[in-house]
């Protein structure tokens, strides 16, 4: 699905991302964790060709993203609030993306009805512009917008941030459902280790632009991640092993 070759991004001489090689196969839910400034958003922006790579290339389905615009047909993304349009209502925003993705009104309505629970009656059919919604609801709009039109690849930067606990739980379920039922690929970053270990099938830890760890998810992944970020081994594991 995604192939990264020798990718580097430097700002005024400082290397902020350095990925010699990375491949993300179809159907993988790829989780990216790392402290602030680790290069997560930089990596996602490079995949979406929003910033120019200092070196190297990114391919989505063998299409070089910097050369062609074709990858847009099957890629959905939500990086930050610049991915929503403040002066539209959520309904109009979804209709707009629907049009761009070749969906008719019925398709859009059918698609949105699956998210009724996630939206909790606060988003659809309300005559409110997106700019007046709460942060959490804005995020919901953006994330659902990224899932529209049956894309093969969905790139979500911190989709769980700003969401309330039940919405986080619902979003986890949504992502898992889409990936397992339809074999779609996800790229997700998060600071919440619990959420990310739950939804992802592979986890990569990024630090100062470099990959520190790249593991498929196992029972121990959450504990490993916590160890990595806190620098402490949990007492309980000692008992677990006994």
């Amino acid at each position: 699905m995604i192939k990264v070759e020798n990718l580097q991004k430097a700002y005024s001489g400082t290397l902020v991302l350095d990925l010699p090689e990375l491949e993300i196969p179809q159907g993988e839910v790829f989780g990216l964790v790392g402290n602030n400034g680790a290069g997560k958003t930089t990596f996602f922006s490079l995949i979406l060709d929003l910033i120019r790579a200092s070196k190297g290339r990114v391919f989505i389905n063998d299409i070089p993203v910097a050369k062609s615009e074709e990858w847009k047909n099957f890629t959905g993304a939500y990086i930050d609030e610049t991915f929503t349009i403040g002066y539209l209502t959520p309904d109009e925003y979804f209709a707009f993306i629907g049009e761009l993705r070749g969906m008719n009104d019925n398709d859009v309505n059918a698609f949105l009805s699956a998210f009724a629970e996630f939206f909790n009656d606060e988003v659809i059919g309300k005559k409110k512009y997106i700019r007046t919604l709460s942060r959490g609801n804005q995020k919901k709009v953006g994330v659902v917008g990224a899932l529209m039109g049956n894309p093969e690849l969905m790139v979500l930067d911190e989709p769980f941030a700003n969401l309330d606990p039940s919405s986080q739980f619902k979003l986890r379920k949504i992502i898992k459902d889409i990936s397992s039922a339809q074999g779609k690929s996800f790229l997700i970053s998060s600071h919440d280790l619990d959420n990310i270990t739950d939804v992802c099938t592979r986890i990569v830890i990024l630090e100062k632009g470099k990959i520190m760890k790249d593991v498929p998810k196992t029972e121990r992944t959450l504990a490993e991640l916590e160890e990595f970020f806190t620098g402490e081994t949990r007492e309980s594991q000692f008992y677990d092993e006994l």
Partner: protein
Amino acid sequence: MKRSFFYFAWREMVRSANLQKNIATKGVLLFLILYFSLVALAMGLNLHQYLEEKFPDQSLVTAFNALIFVYIGFEFVMRIMVQALPTVGFQPFLILPVKRKRIARYMLNKSVLHFFNLLPLLLLIPFTFKAAVKELDTTSLVAWLVSLYLMVLVNHFLAIYVKWRTNESTAVFYGFLGLAAGVFAIDYFEVFDITGTFGRFFDLVVAHPVLVLVFPVLIVVLYYLNRTYLLNRFFIDELSQKKTKASTHDFSWLHQVGDYGKMLSLEVKMIIRNKRPRNSAILSVLFILYGLLLYKENDGQVPEFMYVFGGMFMTGIFGMTYGQFFPAWHSRYYSFLMAQNVQMKQMLQSAFFLIAATNVVFYLLSLGYMFISPKVLYIHLVVMLYNIGVNSFVIFALGLTSRKAIDLDRGSMFNYQGMGASQWLIAFPILFGPLAVYGLIYLILGSTGAFIVLGSIGLVGIILHPKLISYFSREYRKRKHKMLAAYKAT
């Protein structure tokens, strides 16, 4: 602690994104300030001569007083349009142990430091020395001068209060508009001589200097009105913009124009629902009246050159105001557009359609001037063709250098946010390009030839537009990363 508030204000000003405007913008602002200062100064120095000629049998001070209302009224309108409300930047202080009264007082005091409160002095002081000193004794002179300046401050606090109220509700806004029109009408149709009465009050101040005390009282009253208003609304959700229900007109009929129709309907929503582009659009519509000023002289016996100029403005004004910030209008969600399933070409096509369509509409509207001169029919036509066929692409070319994000929610009057050199420069090729072409060909081929050439160049551009749009979409894609990075940074 008192000092620290101004310390914050200073930091806010020095470090604001606005001050990082480029040299061109600073230059123009400085120019405007200097210009108005010089105008005021020149008026102050020469006013006594003008008044002497106009009202030879009156005292100069009385004649001057009779004009005060006109000045104050004009100033009031300017203040309502241009002066910013002192609201920004108080939010972080709300939860700190600072009394709200102090914040309110500070905000109001700070608002006094404004160019508008300085400008009248430039007019007043020279006039005082040239004329008033000779007519008035010291007590009257001081009382008169103080009362005039305090009147400016009364205007200041009144304007702030009215602006706050009108910002809050549309009903009050229209009520105020009606009231202002009423006052103007009463004065204009001489139902009641407001200007004269207003002036005579200042005559009274000269006669009885004690009356100057009226002004401090007025200022205190207005100050407290403002302060009460602020104190009652010291909540972040109440001092901000008025709340309106979202209008959801969908413009889906625009989709019929082709696969760029969806971009076009987004474009139209962007213009209608946001303050800044809406202001620009309304201004363009009003510009259709420019011809009344331009063509009216000598019953249409103006040189053809003027019709080229006027046609340029009236048909192309929307293209200019919109094109000035193309594509920065979409800067706040440019990354979304770049990652979504929109081709760059569709964006340019929709912009081109918008510019072309408004040109045609404004051309049809401008045909009203055929009553002044039938020449308008063909002169405006060739100019319109040129606008569509050439100037649209000049706009696209200059848009390639767009590097500043636009805040859609602020009004457009004297708003220099997002202005860069190219936004200032855009006027030159767009306005003077066709004038230069016209002038040159006119010298060689005469008037008819010039119009034929002007129209033909436009037609060629229109015929070639698919090719030109493809070319520009490649260029925009090449500069996409730079634009994205720059929009993020501003």
